[in-house]
């Protein structure tokens, strides 16, 4: 592997990591503030991608599609919180798991009814449809750089939210305690509804910006959900630093797992088993630090 290919893979890995960070930030926001484990979070990522696909065809512009898509995602979040999630605050995690699992089935099947089961592509917007030449044969698409920049901006926003606000203080403390939130003089029902909608919107937005790169396909949501879980476990809940480090680590491990080759005793390990690499990483972290890289020791 020469230096240019290596550079491209590093950029790809970081870009994937940043995207994961964006998806996972919505997940941990809902988990940290509301104490809800939301299996359907990946599904909202998928919803975002399909919204980008259908709305960009309708409007003829990905930008308009994103704007419209975020509005729809927020609406979906508000309605779901009001209708279903608000009934789960005092219930065991088990029931949250099951209800949101039911939501996955519903959204996946709705997707199948409306869009079918084919893979779709989304066009990159006109003015980002250029590449930076690295050598005569290799170049790097500007859209991917733009994606990384957007994710970084949102990451900084999340960092400020978590480090500099009272709300963030509670997330860091791991407090998912309604009484405590209320004691800070916050309208709890409204806050929870908004936080949930924000989480949904973040996942959907990630799906939208990823759509031109990753394409749009069934099951894309669940795939990203599980990777997000791995990321949360590696990074540790309540630490932005840990989440960012875990996201980049996963991005790099996953990307390089697919391009490196490794044979052990004649059996092809990589890239054949590249899909398992991040789980191996998680296993190692669990052995060394069960509370995650930056998690608090219990």
């Amino acid at each position: 592997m020469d230096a240019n290919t290596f550079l491209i893979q590093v950029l790809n890995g970081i870009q994937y990591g940043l995207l994961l960070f964006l998806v996972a930030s919505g997940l941990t926001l809902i988990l940290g503030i509301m104490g809800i484990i939301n299996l359907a979070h990946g599904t909202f990522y998928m919803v975002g991608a399909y919204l980008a696909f259908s709305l960009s065809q309708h409007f003829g512009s990905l930008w308009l599609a994103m704007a419209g898509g975020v509005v729809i995602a927020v609406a979906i979040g508000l309605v779901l919180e009001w209708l279903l999630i608000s009934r789960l605050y005092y219930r065991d995690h088990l029931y949250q798991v099951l209800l949101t699992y039911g939501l996955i089935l519903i959204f996946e099947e709705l997707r199948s009814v409306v869009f079918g089961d084919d893979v779709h592509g989304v066009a990159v917007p006109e003015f980002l449809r250029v590449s930076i030449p690295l050598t005569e044969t290799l170049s790097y698409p500007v859209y991917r750089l733009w994606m990384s920049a957007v994710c970084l901006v949102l990451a900084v926003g999340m960092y400020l939210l978590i480090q500099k606000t009272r709300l963030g203080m509670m997330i860091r403390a791991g407090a998912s305690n309604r009484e405590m939130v209320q004691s800070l003089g916050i309208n709890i029902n409204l806050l929870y509804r908004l936080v949930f909608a924000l989480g949904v919107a973040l996942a959907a937005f990630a799906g939208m910006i990823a759509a031109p790169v990753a394409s749009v396909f069934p099951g894309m949501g669940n795939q990203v959900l599980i990777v997000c879980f791995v990321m949360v476990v590696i990074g540790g809940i309540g630490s932005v630093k840990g989440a960012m480090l875990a996201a980049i680590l996963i991005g790099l491990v996953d990307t390089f797992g697919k391009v490196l080759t490794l044979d052990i005793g004649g059996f092809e390990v990589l890239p054949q088993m590249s899909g398992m690499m991040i789980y191996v990483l998680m296993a190692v972290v669990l052995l060394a630090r069960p509370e995650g890289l930056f998690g608090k020791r219990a």
Partner: protein
Amino acid sequence: MRGLRAGTVVLLACLLALALLPLVAEKYYIQLFTKMMIMAIFAMSLDLLVGFTGLVSLGHAAFFGLAGYVLAFAAPQYQAADLWLSLPLAMVCSGLLALIIGALVLRTSGIYFIMVTLAFAQMVFFLFHDTKIAGGADGIYVYAKPVAAIAGWEPFTLENHTHFYFVVLVLLALVYACLRLLLNSLFGRVIVGIRVNEPRMKSLGYRTFRYKLVCFVLAGALAGMAGYFAAAQFGFVSPETLGWHQSGSVLMMVILGGMGTLTGAVLGAFAMMLVELGLQGLPVIGGVEIAKHWQLLMGAFIVCAVLLLPQGLLGLGKLASRLRSKPAEARDG
């Protein structure tokens, strides 16, 4: 005491009904009930974790699916596997996998535990999905059902669907009875204690990690038993059998029936399979093939069940009996 005896009577009646079923039912229904009983064993194995030990595992299908793959490996090229060898082998493999995964996931708890069990099961999924060791994403066929020969004599043949049915029925009853014993034993009291108040168990001097790990391995091996027979009956194993939809669906069975009771797990498995079958049999309404999109209604069913049946189906029975006994108490008072 009277309630216990009434429960036993109902249980024996159900067992009798299941034993008599092949006399009246067609082949299709015999096979259907075989499948439901296999899933009941699977659900009971998960209930051991979720309902009794308080460990919400979202990756239980890994052990179920692995045993199916073990059977597929044990029966290469149209040859039938030896039941007496391959069944224990499959259960040991599932148990070993549970030991490895359990040693890692039990270092976490609560929400983390849910996420980590799901993630490791997904790792096993990718192992079979991405590599060529067992047919990859396409899965692998089990062409012949295992043979149960003892020195040339065959007490039963699994190729016969009625024989298969009775073998599974006997196993179901056996697993149920063994788990009843287990839950009443010293070990059983410890795991229930862990569910109720794990920190207190620790301060009483129990090394809870060990008990949870043993429980995880037992549950994994039992799930392996179910997975072995599921693969034998269906004749096919694919990565989906150890995927997370399988894990979610068996978790729903446990909750639907009413977790923390073995009968609840069995009831939940039967009910869930019937609902699934009912949805798949729905007709075309207004040009929409509802049967094809049955998962949509299944999702709605799960959402409703979680919101409306917090105690599961058994809880419904308790509620009904409480409503009936209320007026009587009022009169007495």
